[in-house]
């Protein structure tokens, strides 16, 4: 699955950046889907607290607007400019199986969503695999974008994106900084200092790259992945140094927030920060500043966003969810409470889709949405709520609910690894397995039902 750089190629890349970039660009042309008119884009979104399945599951004829439906915002044309129902795929029964196997579940489960691996996995998440290893992010100033709201923690359950080697990719949680990185001048230089910054920056980078090359020559194989990651970072900085300002219009600079973090006093700003992160990422995609992004939404405890819910939506709502199954009737009041949070998350998803549409990038973008849990009261990583919203360029049969659950009481599901394989294939990566597990059967195969 992973395309390891040979030592020779790696060292060459460190020493001769221009040649490397040219090589990578050729690799991109070879890997890109040939029939696509526009480069394909991928955004993955994490939503917290699982789902109230009773109000998440579409009803007959793919009805997502019945009373109480948490998916209703995705069909709310009045609020979001258009309905996205026809581009929506609702996947029921996706399990974070490789995580379950080794105990990476519950609040740790987001680790598995894009890696298909448990906490000890060493492979990259799908966004990084496509953008870096498959070089599909090489042609844009930003190889990928990793955004979050409320926490920049590198803890195992707080990230979607992981580089090869299994290290979390840091999240940008401050919209001002995201704006500066995307639409400001490279490395924080003022406009009048741009030429100076480019010359000096190039000079510095050349020496830094030489030093990395020297280190890599002495380092054993076991250090390769880490030093490759450093080389990737240097290439990304160089791309931005030489990048000409985007031709599309910059958005207005976002306001500065006094506090940003969960439990550090940032909670009241999370709604506004989420909107800004969505708008900035959609604009970045639309301006072709990047083609790969992940968004990690905040746990909304103490945000006081929901007047009808307790302040602690984690303990008092998600943990109190009492779902219905074949042998248990459940508690509808608990579904309705959790649904309020779910509907809020999908409202943000609708905003993202709206912004992508406005930016002219909707048709070529695949949006993947998931959570670390299905039933949040059980901290279960089975049947995690999974959505795909695919622009027409992807040729998927959308506007459908696909029930992948099976077995006794429909408790069994399908490993998310198959979904990751399917998405990778949509981006031209000819892989047949994704992730790491002692149980190889979890990793192979794809979801034929998507097309």
């Amino acid at each position, binding site marked *: 699955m992973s395309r390891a750089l040979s030592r020779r190629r790696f060292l060459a890349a460190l020493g001769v950046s221009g040649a490397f970039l040219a090589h990578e660009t050729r690799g991109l042309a070879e890997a890109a889907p040939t029939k696509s008119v526009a480069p394909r884009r991928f955004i993955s979104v994490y939503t917290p607290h699982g789902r109230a399945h009773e109000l998440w599951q579409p009803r007959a004829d793919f009805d997502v607007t019945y009373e109480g439906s948490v998916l209703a915002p995705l069909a709310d044309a009045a609020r979001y400019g258009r309905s996205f129902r026809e581009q929506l795929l609702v996947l029921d029964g996706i399990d974070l199986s490789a995580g379950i196997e080794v105990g990476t579940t519950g609040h740790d489960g987001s680790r598995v969503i894009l890696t298909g691996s448990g906490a000890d996995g060493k492979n990259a998440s799908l966004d990084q695999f496509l953008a870096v290893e498959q070089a599909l992010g090489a042609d844009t100033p930003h190889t990928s974008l990793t955004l979050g709201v409320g926490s920049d923690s590198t803890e195992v359950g707080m990230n979607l994106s992981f580089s090869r080697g299994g290290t979390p990719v840091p999240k940008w949680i401050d919209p001002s900084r995201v704006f500066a990185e995307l639409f400001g001048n490279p490395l924080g230089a003022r406009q009048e200092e741009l030429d100076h910054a480019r010359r000096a920056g190039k*000079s510095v980078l050349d*020496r830094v790259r030489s030093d990395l090359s020297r280190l890599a020559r002495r380092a054993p194989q076991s250090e390769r992945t880490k030093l490759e990651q450093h080389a990737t970072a240097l290439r990304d900085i160089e791309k931005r140094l030489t990048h000409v300002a985007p031709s599309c219009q910059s958005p207005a600079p976002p306001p500065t927030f006094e506090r940003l973090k969960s439990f550090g006093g940032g909670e009241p700003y999370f709604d506004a920060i989420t909107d800004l992160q969505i708008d900035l990422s959609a604009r970045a995609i639309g301006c072709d500043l990047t083609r790969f992004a992940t968004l990690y939404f905040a746990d909304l405890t103490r945000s006081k966003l929901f007047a009808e819910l307790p302040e602690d939506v984690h303990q008092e709502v998600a943990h109190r969810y009492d779902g219905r199954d074949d042998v248990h009737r459940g508690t509808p009041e608990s579904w309705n409470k959790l649904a309020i949070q779910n509907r809020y998350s999908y409202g943000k998803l609708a905003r993202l889709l709206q912004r992508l549409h406005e930016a002219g990038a909707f048709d070529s973008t695949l949006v993947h949405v998931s959570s670390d849990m299905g039933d949040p009261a059980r901290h279960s990583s089975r049947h995690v709520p999974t959505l795909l919203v695919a622009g027409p360029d992807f040729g998927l049969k959308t506007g459908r609910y696909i029930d992948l659950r099976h077995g006794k009481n429909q408790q069994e599901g399908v490993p998310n690894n198959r979904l990751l394989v399917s998405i990778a294939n949509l981006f031209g990566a000819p892989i047949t397995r994704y992730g790491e597990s002692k149980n190889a059967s979890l990793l192979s195969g794809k979801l034929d039902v998507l097309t």
Partner: protein
Amino acid sequence: MRRLGALLLAVCPAVGGCGAFAASTRRPTAELPAGAALLPARTRRLTNWELERSLAAFTGLDVTIAQELPPDVRQEGYTPNVAQDVSTAWATRYSALVQQLAVKAAARLPGRERCRDLGPDCRARRVVELGEFAFRRPLEAEEQRSLEALVSEAANAGEGFEGAMSELLQTLFESPSFIYVSELGEATAAGTRRLTNDELASELSFMLTGAPPDAELRAAAAQGALDEPAARAQQAWRLLGLSSTRYQFRHFALQWLEVDRLLDTAKSSQLFPTYDALKPYMLAETENYVDEVLVHRGASVQALLAGGFASVGPEMARFYGLKTYGPRASLAGSGRLGVLQQASFLAAHAHEDVTSPVKRGDFVMRKLLCEKVKRPAEIGLEVVMPPPSATLSNRARLSQHIADPGCASCHSTLDAIGFTFESFDAAGAAQTSDHGHAIDTRTQVRLGQQATEVQSLASSEALTRALLENPQIDKVSECFARHAFRYFSAQADPRVEETFVALRAELDESERDNLFRVLVAYVASDLFVLREVKGT
């Protein structure tokens, strides 16, 4: 085989209860048994804090960048580790920060009166002087040529002296030779690698102080003195005696206790309205207590767990109901004994609204007994949160863990240990009742999966004392040393850990419990010096 004991005694300063070493009878050896697992040849990116200290040492400026960078990755909960990498986000932010710092530092380079032109002599002198300090080793000829060329190019582009020096400093700060600690060594006849003197100096200094080598250590490295175990031990004791070294041990202790991110935690504002205001004082108490214990009471887990005093100001003294405050305020009669009864620990191992005997018990199992506690999913269990109750005590509510056989396999021990802490609420304050029920901290428990004896414990104080008595004390002490080794050697390979444990076992029984003594023995050993190559 070289013997270390006499060497260590000869250089042992009055740090950390050193007097106990005089009773040594058995001595650790510098050489390792055949086949002993070694640390791998590797490069380690410095932690954000180590970089902050390095930049401060280099520039002489007050540098605060650690909190400005994307957070460090943790392994086993510790930030020094080989998983730290240089991602695009990290590199971008770091570059912007050191660019600003380089401008400031260039404006106040020492020796300006002697050398501030951009002619060949001055340029070469600056490059060598600054480069060697940054890289913590002599520059290679090609490095020197390239850096001098950088200064020339800057001059040709119209930069003045400060502009060119700023570019040079930025380059040095961003260079892998500055950002990474090299443990690559040189090949030996035995197929291993042996760290160079420069590498040994860096390794020793970052391990014990979290900062780059000082002038004395660099001079020892330049003379090749660090090949000798006694010289390494002497330097180690010297570094342990520096007042700034306490910051490194604070970092370790706070990460071991899992309280270092206390400021990012929250409690129900209805139930614990003063928690947000008190959090900084709680954290400061633990920091100050660690300082007191390590400097004055001996660097042992016993002292951390059972100092019998609090290092508090008036805020925490009021919170605890103490009559006095200060660096060693008596805890007599308070039900508190050491770090396990400090508010920081109790709050960090609790939920937002209610105590968590599970988290508290889990800590004791993992961090004091080194017992592997399986996560529920590993044994095919889905966690069902115990339903809330307006009438039951937390202890009664959690009793269903014990009633369910699947849960009982772990929770019969975890919860039983955790119940001893029920006299402290979720924010660490003393509590005497829970939902109208008198608090019951009594428990019966086996301390560890191999323990045969069921112990009756009346409180967390009794638990602490039981952990520090035979037969648990050896296990607890070894477990603490294992965790210290994970932090100070920046890895968690169980095979290498066994080599370290064997090394520690060669120390006299009375010395094994002293963390400083154990670390110096490690520094003096071949485990510190040799590396094995994984992959080619």
